[in-house]
């Protein structure tokens, strides 16, 4: 059995993204959930599956069961792949509804990643959770994800001649998209000169190569094919979905190929399931904690040849009028980062429905969404409304 067209995203919901929500993680999550349920046009007690988030201080599935007054919770799972959770959860939810174990699975993530436990407080979490990092990497000063991702960026620049300006064009393009989005945190224009002059945090990564931290939550509902047709909106079909896990999932240092992580492993499976080639893609929502990962993913997806992602971005390829409009919501770099990449999925659904507002692009084909967690677990989804 394949998961092709066995499930659809029928509802999406996001809170306001901010730097200071004034709400608890739980309240944020409930708001996002209520919006997703309203968007799907179902009653909340029709939710019979839940995949909660292990990050932050939100609800477990038991908590949602109680606070939403669910009548028959039939399926629950928790995934543990950091920023890939938004899509590894979709993988699990798609399997649950395809098998008949559930009809409407709710996926939610969100927290006060700015005003609460900051996203950048991950060093302490790395110390606690990642044995290899604690033992063999942090004694040398490599204590935060930025150190390891900067090592990837430098390797890419060394091998392919990718330039800091090309990295900067990712940030500049995404900022231009954020300016069209009322729910994006960064609302000041960004020029390539400002990127180049911004503070170097971990050379070769400048301040504007790095994602923001935010408060906020997001949720979506995955419904079985027959159940999706009864929902309020045109279903967003899951054409293809796959996970990828590299040979050293907890360390970028000892990975057999420094530049090949889970997304590159998952991509061919997701595209094959969808029955498309990379050039059939009409837009991309790529997980972007650091600017260079967008370039690397354009290559990992097979959209650009190896080493050609940088020039593609520099020539305007990911802009709204480019060949592959990318992160049209502003991404983690300029919209928000506290929802395990569910904001990327929400934007893909809006683009496919034609409700992306000022950032709407003219779509005739599928959209790809990616997620990357911790040190390289990845997931890829291909979605379409037709």
């Amino acid at each position, binding site marked *: 059995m394949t998961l092709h067209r066995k499930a659809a995203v029928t509802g999406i919901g996001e809170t306001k993204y901010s730097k200071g929500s004034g709400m608890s993680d739980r309240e944020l999550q409930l708001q996002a959930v209520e919006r997703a349920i309203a968007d799907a046009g179902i009653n909340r007690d029709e939710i019979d599956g839940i995949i909660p988030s292990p990050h932050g201080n939100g609800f477990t599935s038991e908590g949602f069961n109680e606070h939403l007054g669910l009548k028959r919770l039939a399926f629950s799972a928790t995934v543990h792949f950091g920023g890939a959770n938004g899509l590894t959860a979709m993988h699990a939810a798609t399997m649950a509804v395809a098998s008949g174990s559930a009809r409407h699975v709710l996926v939610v993530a969100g927290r006060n990643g700015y005003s609460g436990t900051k996203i*950048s407080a991950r*060093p302490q979490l790395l*110390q606690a959770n990642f*044995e*290899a990092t*604690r*033992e*063999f*990497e*942090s*004694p*040398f*000063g*490599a*204590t*935060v994800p*930025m*150190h390891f991702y*900067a*090592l*990837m960026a*430098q*390797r890419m620049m*060394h091998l392919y001649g990718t330039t800091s300006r090309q990295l900067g064009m990712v940030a500049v393009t995404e900022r231009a998209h954020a300016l069209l989005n009322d729910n994006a945190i960064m609302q000041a224009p960004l020029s390539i000169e400002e990127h180049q002059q911004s*503070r*170097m*945090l*971990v*050379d*070769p*990564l400048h301040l504007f190569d790095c994602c923001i931290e935010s408060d906020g939550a997001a949720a979506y509902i995955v419904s079985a094919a027959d159940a999706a047709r009864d929902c309020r909106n045109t279903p967003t079909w899951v054409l293809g979905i796959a996970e990828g896990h590299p*040979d050293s999932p907890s*360390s970028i*240092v*000892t990975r057999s190929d*420094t530049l090949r992580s889970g997304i590159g492993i998952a991509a061919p499976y997701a595209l094959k399931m969808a029955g498309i080639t990379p050039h059939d893609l009409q837009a991309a929502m790529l997980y972007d904690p650091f600017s260079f990962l967008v370039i690397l993913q354009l290559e990992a997806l097979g959209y650009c040849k190896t080493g050609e992602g940088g020039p593609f971005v520099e020539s305007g390829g990911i802009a709204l009028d480019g060949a592959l409009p990318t992160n049209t919501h502003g991404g983690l770099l300029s919209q928000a980062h506290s929802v395990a990449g569910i904001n990327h999925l929400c934007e893909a659904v809006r683009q496919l429905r034609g409700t992306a507002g000022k950032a709407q692009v003219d779509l005739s084909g599928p959209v790809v969404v990616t997620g990357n967690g911790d040190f390289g677990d990845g997931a890829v989804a291909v979605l379409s409304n037709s």
Partner: protein
Amino acid sequence: MASKPIPQPSEASLPYWEACRSHELRIQRCLQCGSLIHYPKLRCPTDGSDQFEWALMSGLGAVHSFVIPRRAFHPGFKDEVPHVIAIVELDEGVRVLTNIVGADPADVRAGMRVTLEWDDNAGEYPLAKFKPIVGGHA
């Protein structure tokens, strides 16, 4: 001054750290298939064996990638930045996370040849750091 994170050996890695005490860089090697394994593991990822030796490395290698933190993200490194954090590929083929010492960070390049330099000021276990080989090149 805040202290730096110090190595806490696991059941798989204790021989690595004990060798460091004698200034020997030893990497786990599977006795069955001969493959080098880093970081240390309880089973050989290639063939599942649990029989290992600890192979002495030459201490020579090349910079695979490197970065220069301009600010400290951990208070223990406040007096050290900017410094060079690097992945070094040993000539035996294993990659390690380390620091490049004895060089101006601005002069470090990917491909640069380096040799082992023990840091005895890191606590209980010396740390295997690397310095450029004078006259060495990619």
